[in-house]
């Protein structure tokens, strides 16, 4: 890892320079206080300090819906490249996003490698950007508030300048190609950086106790709290759509036009009623409460057993987007008997 400093006024020039590595994608404002990730040409539209975009970056790697395979009548089934987005520079990734990217890698790049994910992933350049938490952030509780790997370059704003961390050979390329933008970091820069980290640590208002979470959850499997949450949940799937690590998908076969068959893939959510229904009609999770519980157990218990950490990064999107106000932090407080 190398560190540099960059003058804050160089930011537009830096973003222009990033375009050499691919389509520049950054948060832009959609409505008052709401942001979406979007390819931009005009760098002044970028709002890297925006805390959350409605959909997380996973949409850059896997579209909500894309064609996987196609077959024309009389021909062979062929792979199609509907999901291939070319080289992308994702500008404005926060620490939690970068942790989420690692989790997606665990899901999609282990055992059988998903080629649709891999092709976009390998061409993805990640430029991080330091943030300050709001009332929905609880990344600190999950240890995802800082990040040491998984990005190419990371900018931490320090008033009139940025501390620039470089973590990959591609990041190194970017710095070397634009020497006029960077200078070595000074002691004052690192001092201010540490000060900022401290300040940030103190600004979290939401916290979740994850001590022994899998064991606690195992003991609480039959707890009435799951029925309670089940009664409140609309099963609209919004939490899964906006979750940076929810990665389930459906496979749909269709004939959109004469002589052409397409196998498409769409994001799915385990809260949807037919999620576990098999051919013949048996539904292994017909009860709403079972589906809700499954979502929490998959992320906070089973994933920990498998990979040593939960597949939740504390970004707060599900809390912000749940129409009935189901709050993961509160749910776990209930589970622990604290509420």
């Amino acid at each position, binding site marked *: 890892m190398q560190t540099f400093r960059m003058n804050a006024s160089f930011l537009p020039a830096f973003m222009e320079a990033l375009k050499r590595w691919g389509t520049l994608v950054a948060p832009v404002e959609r409505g008052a206080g709401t942001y979406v990730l979007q390819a931009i040409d005009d760098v002044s539209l970028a709002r890297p300090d925006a805390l959350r975009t409605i959909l997380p970056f996973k949409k850059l790697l896997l579209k909500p819906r894309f064609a996987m395979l196609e077959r024309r009548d009389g021909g062979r*089934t062929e792979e199609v490249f509907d999901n291939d987005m070319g080289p992308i520079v994702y500008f404005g990734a926060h620490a939690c996003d970068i942790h989420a990217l690692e989790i997606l890698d665990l899901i*999609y790049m*282990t055992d059988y490698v998903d080629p649709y994910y891999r092709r976009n992933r390998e061409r993805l350049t990640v430029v991080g950007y330091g943030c300050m938490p709001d009332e929905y952030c609880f990344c600190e509780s*999950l*240890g995802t508030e800082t990040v040491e790997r998984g990005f190419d370059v990371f900018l931490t704003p320090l008033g009139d300048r940025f501390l620039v961390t470089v973590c990959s050979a591609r990041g190194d390329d970017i710095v070397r190609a634009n020497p006029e933008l960077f200078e070595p970091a000074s002691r004052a820069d690192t001092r201010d950086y540490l000060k900022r980290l401290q300040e940030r640590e103190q600004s979290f208002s939401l916290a979740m106790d994850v001590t022994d979470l899998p064991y606690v959850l195992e003991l609480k499997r039959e707890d009435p709290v799951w029925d309670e949450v089940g009664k409140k949940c609309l099963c609209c799937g919004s939490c899964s759509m906006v979750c940076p690590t929810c990665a389930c998908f459906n496979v749909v076969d269709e004939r959109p036009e004469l002589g052409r068959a397409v196998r498409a893939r769409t994001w799915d959510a385990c809260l949807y009623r037919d999620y576990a229904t098999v051919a*013949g009609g048996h539904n*292994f999770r017909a009860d709403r409460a079972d589906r809700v519980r499954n979502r929490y157990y998959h992320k906070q218990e089973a994933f920990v057993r498998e990979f040593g950490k939960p597949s939740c990064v504390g970004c707060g999107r599900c809390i912000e987007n749940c129409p009935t106000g189901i709050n993961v932090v509160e749910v776990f407080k209930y589970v622990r008997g604290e509420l």
Partner: protein
Amino acid sequence: MSVVIPKPFVPRGGPRELATGPNPYLPAPARIMRAADLVPDVRLFELRFTDSTLADSFTFRPGQFVELSVEGVGEGPFSLPSSPTRRGVFQLGIRRAGKLTDFLFNYLSEGDEVGIRGPLGNGFPVERLEGSDLMLVAGGLGMVPLRGLLQYVVDLRERFGRVMLLYGSRNPDAVLFREELESLARRGDVELHLSVDATQGKPWSGRVGVVTELLDEVVCDVPSTYAVACGPPVFYKFMLEKLVAMGFGRDRIFLSLERRMECGIGKCGHCAVGYTFTCLHGPVFSYWDAMNLPELIYT
């Protein structure tokens, strides 16, 4: 903050590949060599990959499955009722149960092509079973994967001890592979115990009643026997506890489970129970592992 079990970020294993190609979602074309009804709603399809190199090299473990697809119609997981000891072709036993299988039954016959991906899943632990007696317990369509195991055992007969097959069906017309099983029994390769829920007025010499009752018929040396059970969700409910009551260790009972499987490679999430993917880590589990994954055995 405390992460419970610290573990560095390392993929669990090297990338795996399917026999059918580097893109695990891309099916390889296979031709239907033979299609014959086993019983009115279950048909046995014999397939061969059109690529002859793949056809000759294709192998799998008994208990694994493949995804069969017809583009534009659908894709579904099907158990292999044949044994890898017989090369060149493989079989699928398919029951008519939905849109894809309707299409297979209505429109596809010998000479037509379908897409196949596989082999998928873990399969039965055949190496572990070698040298022991085997008690195979099948309910209904559960006979399909067990027939693959049975064929494997018969082809390598000297490696296994006694082989008992306990098989329950709805009625005498629903018994799969009946002639073949009876001929194996006559040869002495397998001890066959059949039951039906009801005779429905058809001639029947076996037992009438639920399949669990067959367990009362057999006498075996439990400590040197492995039990392998396969059937619909309701079948497991009584079967497993009865086997335990007979003295089987929970790690000496294996079962093959059904779930909604779409991708077959542990990505899409539909068959997951916790982080256990029935398609990837299963479909074969020891009873001990399965009972420690709440929800896995559906009651």
